[in-house]
């Protein structure tokens, strides 16, 4: 139902920043086919590897966390990543539903 004023994930990001954590926002910006979460779905990740919210139904979250930790490590501000269905290990990083999503990662600075 679009983005709601009640969505708490950004408030949580601010709370993490207050405790001096580095925080990356991951936002679904494009979808093709039967992707599990709509455009605008969001997840936050901190430098400890904690995450909140979601960008898929659990299919690619692990990989997104890994990418975000990489972004923090390299001290880069943003990056676009894409996920397609992957037959060999669909349950690990691809989307088992056959959809495709593109996600924008941005570090809060």
């Amino acid at each position, binding site marked *: 139902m679009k983005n709601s004023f009640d969505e708490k994930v950004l408030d949580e990001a601010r709370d993490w920043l207050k405790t001096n954590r580095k925080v990356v926002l991951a936002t679904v*910006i494009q979808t093709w086919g039967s992707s599990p979460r709509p455009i605008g779905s969001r997840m936050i990740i901190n430098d400890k590897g904690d995450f909140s919210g979601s960008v898929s139904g659990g299919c690619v979250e692990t990989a997104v966390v890994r990418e975000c930790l990489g972004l923090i490590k390299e001290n880069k501000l943003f990056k676009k990543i894409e996920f397609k269905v992957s037959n060999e290990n669909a349950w690990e990083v691809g989307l088992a539903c056959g959809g495709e999503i593109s996600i924008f990662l941005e570090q809060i600075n």
Partner: protein
Amino acid sequence: MKEELLKKIIEKKEKKIEFAIITNLENGEGCIFEKDKPLDKNFEKHKDEIMSQFHKKKNGIIEGTNIFVENYIRPIKVIVVGAVHIAQYLINFAKSLNFEISIIDPRGYFASEQRFPGIKIVNKWPKEAFTEIKTDKNTALIALTHDPKIDDPAIQHAIKSNFFYIGALGSKKTHENRCKRLKESGFNDEQINKIFGPIGIKLGGKSAPEIALSIIAQLISEVYNKQ
């Protein structure tokens, strides 16, 4: 995203102001766009497209560009008539679904702050209550008292104001009688047929949380129907 922007977004959300976050995916720059406020200079080039996507409340990348628009919209207003047990469960569901519930019930012992913490309660008869709650065609009505004295005036107001959803609790028989009364009051079949009665989708459950779930499910389906 700059921390400053994040703080501004949270502030707008708390004030319940409709806005959009505009992000340039090429350089990571972002800004907030609000109705009737000037757009950030860096995004001037795409002003028309941004406005159009904002008005359509559409999230996504503007075609042929690297500009991403994400809208934050006001919750849908839902008026519940009857501070009954089912209403307590409706409120729990509504919290995570972007609905803003107000309760009308003239019976003070039902509509107490203790039973509905943090919810707007109007302790008046519907006719009077609707003078202080602003409603329009984007409002929904859930009538739960199945007492004609309380439900009927609220339903009549909802029909006249063209609410996108009107649901009324009660058996088939109760609903037939309700329809008859409305007809006698001068409403036509088309108007009366818009009422969902008996309210809710058929789940088979009879407990208060089950009925609340069936009502919320129907309401959500109508939210998407009207779009």
